[in-house]
């Protein structure tokens, strides 16, 4: 793949962006112009603080800022906050806000906006913030207009990863105070602090943004206008890019990627960041309450029977990588290397099943002979629940597992039915879920393994996994602020779950951005992707 080129381009961009006003040899930004971006769904409203919906975040993050931003490695950089200190081993975070920041309507931005956003908006409506910070936050103080102090009951490690425009966009107090944030009309004509101001929202068609001349980062943005065009069909998006009607795509369908790569009218970059959820891994869950799946040898056999390279090749067309640990490789400090994850080994899978008491007799599906909790003669048949869009995963599961004598029945369910069936009723054998780890394991990984997270809230511990040691380790990881002290904690967790296999981690699923070669300066790793973008035309 052309990752090498992309790597160089990204590094060059990073260097160019370090000082935006100085001209670098590689990419010289030009001022002005309109960028047309294709988005796949109508967001409905433009307030990213009350929802984790990908559509709203994709369309609206350029209008806002968070206290902090992210660089390409995922580390925090200043945004609305110009500096910060971590006190009391991580129980207190003190932020110094920039001076002279104004909202798009001219009102001064102050610490009161931050306090209001967290207390009245994020902690009530933003699912990830609520779930992670909600229970451990003591309070937020604003000793003066430029200082925000966030206090926790105990040290809270992930905070600095949760303060960008995706996880905690700051909204205006003077706009939302005293109203219901969900129905405030400002949701359709937002006021933010971001590089681009809202101009128009033509429902179902497009969202128009214009440069914010008073943006607090000097010299930025370069573009005059950004238009977010709503094009639901991904084939049409590619056609539009090729026809010059659109300049930037958030994702390119797998089959079309090699074609666009070869066309030097376009540039591409792969990233695991997505406004709807980052660092996602397609994960198969085992319902550990089901007798058939209680034996770890059966679970291991299933893992051994799955050719995950085939999943990557045939479903994702190579866009991504086979998962080598329960935590995404993008969270470099937490991702464990060299784990004893089951590989693809059909004979070994068959052997494990035989030893576990599932014998191959007359027909192709195995039957139980002496399996605890299962009557003799029961066929090894399991069901597999999935969103309709993940049907391909079901088909490959069926193919691969039938080769070792396991019968799989696919059950496609719409998301709103899938969620209660899996997490409330626990009426399933296996399923596949795109579990997004988020920027920190505390945000997206804990909920998969902690025993307190077993339903009924959706997308929590689907396996129903309980392990006291793992619970304790996660609690420790949340309280330890220094990264190098957190790494061994998460390593231990991963070693344990790889042995116990409550899940099978299939593939990591990044997305590929594509854009016209006439444009550049994109930061694919953040929601403020076009803050320093330009188009030469």
């Amino acid at each position, binding site marked *: 793949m052309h990752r090498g080129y992309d790597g160089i381009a990204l590094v060059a961009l990073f260097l160019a962006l370090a000082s935006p006003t100085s001209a670098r040899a590689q990419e010289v930004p030009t001022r002005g112009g309109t960028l047309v971006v294709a988005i796949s769904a109508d967001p409905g409203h433009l307030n990213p603080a009350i929802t984790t919906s990908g559509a709203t975040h994709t369309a609206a993050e350029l209008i806002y800022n968070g206290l902090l931003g992210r660089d390409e490695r995922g580390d925090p950089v200043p945004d609305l906050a110009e500096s910060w200190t971590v006190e009391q081993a991580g129980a207190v975070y003190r932020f110094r806000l920039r001076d002279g920041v104004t909202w798009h309507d001219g009102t001064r931005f102050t610490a009161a906006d931050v306090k209001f956003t967290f207390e009245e908006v994020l902690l009530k409506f933003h699912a990830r913030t609520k779930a992670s910070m909600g229970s451990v936050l003591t309070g937020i103080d604003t000793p003066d207009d430029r200082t925000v102090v966030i206090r926790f009951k105990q040290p809270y490690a992930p905070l600095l990863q949760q303060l960008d425009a995706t996880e905690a966009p700051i909204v205006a107090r003077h706009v939302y105070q005293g109203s219901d944030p969900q129905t405030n009309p400002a949701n359709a004509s937002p006021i933010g602090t971001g590089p681009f101001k809202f101009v128009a929202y033509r429902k179902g068609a497009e969202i128009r943004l214009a440069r914010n001349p008073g943006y607090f980062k000097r010299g930025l943005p370069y573009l005059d206008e950004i238009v977010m065009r709503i094009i639901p*069909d*991904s*084939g049409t998006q*590619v056609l539009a890019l090729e026809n010059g009607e659109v300049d930037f795509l958030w994702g390119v*369908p*797998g*089959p*079309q990627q090699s*074609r666009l790569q070869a066309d030097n009218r376009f540039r591409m970059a792969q990233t695991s960041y997505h406004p709807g959820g980052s660092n996602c891994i397609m994960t198969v869950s085992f319902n550990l309450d089901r007798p058939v799946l209680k034996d770890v040898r059966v679970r291991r056999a299933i893992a051994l029977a799955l050719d995950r390279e085939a999943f990557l*090749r*045939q479903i994702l*067309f190579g866009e991504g990588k086979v998962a080598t640990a329960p935590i995404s490789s993008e969270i470099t400090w937490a991702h464990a290397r060299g784990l004893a994850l089951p590989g693809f080994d059909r004979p070994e899978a068959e052997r494990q099943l035989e030893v576990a008491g599932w014998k191959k007799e007359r027909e192709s599906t195995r039957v139980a002979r002496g399996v605890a909790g299962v009557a003799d003669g029961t066929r090894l048949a399991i069901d597999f629940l999935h969103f*309709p*869009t993940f*049907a*391909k995963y*079901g*088909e*490959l599961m*069926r*193919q691969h597992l039938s080769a070792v004598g396991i019968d799989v029945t*696919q*059950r*496609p*369910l*719409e998301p709103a*039915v899938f969620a209660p069936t899996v997490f409330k009723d626990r009426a399933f054998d296996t399923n596949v879920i795109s579990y997004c780890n988020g920027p920190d394991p505390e945000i997206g990984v804990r909920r998969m393994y902690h025993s307190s997270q077993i339903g009924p809230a959706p997308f929590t511990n689907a396996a129903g996994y309980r392990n006291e040691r793992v619970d304790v380790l996660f609690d420790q990881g949340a309280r330890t602020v220094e990264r190098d002290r957190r790494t061994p904690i998460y390593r231990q967790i991963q070693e344990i779950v790889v042995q116990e296999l409550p899940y099978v981690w299939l593939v990591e699923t990044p997305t590929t951005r594509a854009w016209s070669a006439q444009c550049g300066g994109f930061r694919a790793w953040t929601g403020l992707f076009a803050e320093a973008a330009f188009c030469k035309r």
Partner: protein
Amino acid sequence: MLRTPAGAIGLVLTLALVALALLADALAPADPFASVAPPLAPPSRAHAFGTDDLGRDVLAGIIHGTRTSLLVVASVIALAAIIGVAVGAVSGYWTGAVDDVLMRMTDFVLVVPRFFLAVVVIALFGAGTDRLILVLGLTSWPAIARVVRAQTLSLVRREFVDAARALGATDTRVLVRYVLPGALPAALVVISLNAASVILLEAGLSFIGLGDPARMSWGYLANNAQRFLRVAWWVALFPGAAIALAVLGLNLLGDALSEMLEPRAPRPT
């Protein structure tokens, strides 16, 4: 019917489809669900229609898709026909208050837009072929009922019905043995046109993601293939062509049947 080229083509196409559906297992060169070759391979000697993104034989998929699609169509038609013929015959034979009530019901069901109702039902209850058959079957009978009623009304006045009654035949017997067979040809016209629209409806629903992914119907194949239109046209071409041919065949058949019954007379809408 075979006199006109259109009718002949229609008949041939329809019969070919039915044969394909019945003999699917024997005819298909491979298991449609098995990966047998490199994915997205162009048409070749081994795989006449190439392979899809999971390496499955497209021809085998289409042959099996024929069976699934025709099963759906047949079930819908069967359900619609049972209700439609019953309603139409009862309405046309006994007339009066019964006729009034039944026709009001028919008029009502006629205005319910099938596609939208299917969308609502599937969005709320989840995808599934059984749901689809129920929804489409329960909303497709009015056209059949109307035709059967019209035919019954006219047939009932004929002498052979009076004769049968004079010979002591019960109402039911008269209806079943004398009237319905006469009404059948006209009903067949509506049925064949209905079948064509059911195929298109199913394909349309699959395209917007409401199809049943556990079944390999044409709609599912065509939907799956949309992503590959630019890279592997054969995956998209053949399912689309299959749909077009089936709809074409059924329409031509319906037209020819109607020509046969009442040459150049206005057709029931």
